[in-house]
């Protein structure tokens, strides 16, 4: 009799969830790497004004750490004076590293 036969049903196995999550993770990371590759051309275009300006003005430093002269242009700071003229002076001494920023910066 046909009614005695076991009809196979599509049932989600416990391991399928793990495989699905792994696949999702792979897609997330793969998608990120793909985005990195595709964005390369756009990023090149985005940074063109900065490159052009650096070339025109003969700039030698990045405007990332503008708080003091030796951090604004660490590449051109005096090598010989160990304090106030050394690149990374703030971080050079352990106490300098942990001193909080001046109050006006976070008020």
């Amino acid at each position, binding site marked *: 009799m046909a009614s005695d036969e076991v009809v196979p049903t599509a049932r989600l*196995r*416990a*391991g399928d969830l*793990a*495989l699905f*999550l*792994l696949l999702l*993770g*792979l897609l*997330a*990371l793969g*998608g*990120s790497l793909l*985005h*990195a590759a595709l*964005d*390369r051309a756009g*990023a*090149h275009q*985005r*940074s*063109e*004004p*900065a*490159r*052009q*300006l*650096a070339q*025109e*003005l*003969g*700039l*030698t*430093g*990045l*405007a*990332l*750490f*503008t*708080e*003091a*002269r030796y*951090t*604004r*242009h*660490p*590449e*051109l700071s*005096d090598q*010989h*004076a160990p304090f106030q*003229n050394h*690149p*990374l002076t*703030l*971080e050079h001494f352990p106490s300098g*590293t942990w001193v909080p*920023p001046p109050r*006006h*910066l976070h008020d």
Partner: protein
Amino acid sequence: MTEWRSTLARQRYLLDFTVAAMKRRRARNLGLLLVYGGMVFLLASVLFYTGALKHEAGLLLAEAPEIVVQRMVAGRHDLIPETHAETLRRIRGIRAVQGRLWGYHYDPVVRANYTLLVPPSDDIAPGTTVIGPALARARGAGIGDVLSFRGHDGALRAFRIQAVLPQESGLVSADLFLVAEPDFRALFGVPAGQYTDLALRIPNAREIQTVAEKVLETLPDSRPILREEMLRTYDAVFDWRSALVLLPLSGALLAFAILAWEKASGLSADERREIGILKAVGWETGDVLAMKLWEGGLLSLLAFLFGTAAAYWHVFGLSAPLLAPVMQGWSVLYPAFRLTPAIDATQLLALFFLTVLPYLAATLVPVWRAAVTDPDEVMR
């Protein structure tokens, strides 16, 4: 083919069993996954951010002068006279020597340092200025507005803003204040024929080192700074800053390492009994190891994949809001910029070997020990 299929089916059953076992300890495993993923996220964020900044610095400084020559007086950077430039022009291998005029001005209004610079083309009319985007933002100034500074002689000098540099160039121009040569000299009292430093152009890259040696020989009071050294300085700056982020994190990393080691290597009584029962009902050592490998592999791979992907979007999608304050330091003027995604296989492999492999190793060793022991002994 059949053998391959049966191996696959066997592994899927093992995976089913592993996931079912993990579900029984759901809270513990989910917690571990979250902490593990968070650690990977933080490590990857620092790695990606630092790598991208180094890449950006390399791209932007590729066109910087091959050598910058400073004059040193009593161990300090001093103004360099035009006569030094003329001496250097006679050295073979140097195509051009350009006197640069630049300096800093502290503006008490916004309590920020500006970088004042005279463009080499000197196409700025006296009395006017072109300013960087972060400076314009900090002062709330735009084209046509007037900014005034007190000069070295105490006299107030006004500059009408002729243009604001584009936002996209912020990484090199955030704090720039471009002025005409006469204005610069009048503001700082720099006499004619004196420069801040000299920029040398050397067409043949292989001659740079030799030229630097000749510069030192010809002008013993000078300090030549090579472009390679500038890039190395930035590498060191970014490495140091990333170390500063990782240092406070190291406590958390250590705590996680202990947690993971404890979880992975110290088998609980339940787990030991489970292994004993499995062995008693006929599981082979290889099966027990495979099951634990699935468990460790699932946890570490999921943490690695999701942690790394989240770090990518944190750094390159959102411009790393969690790391920016550390990189920013005390700067009032800070550029708004988007980093170019620069990830290489070495970074990913380093991250993989640092995060996934130790966990897998820590999982397998104790399980193997328990699995090769007599089931009766294990269950006691």
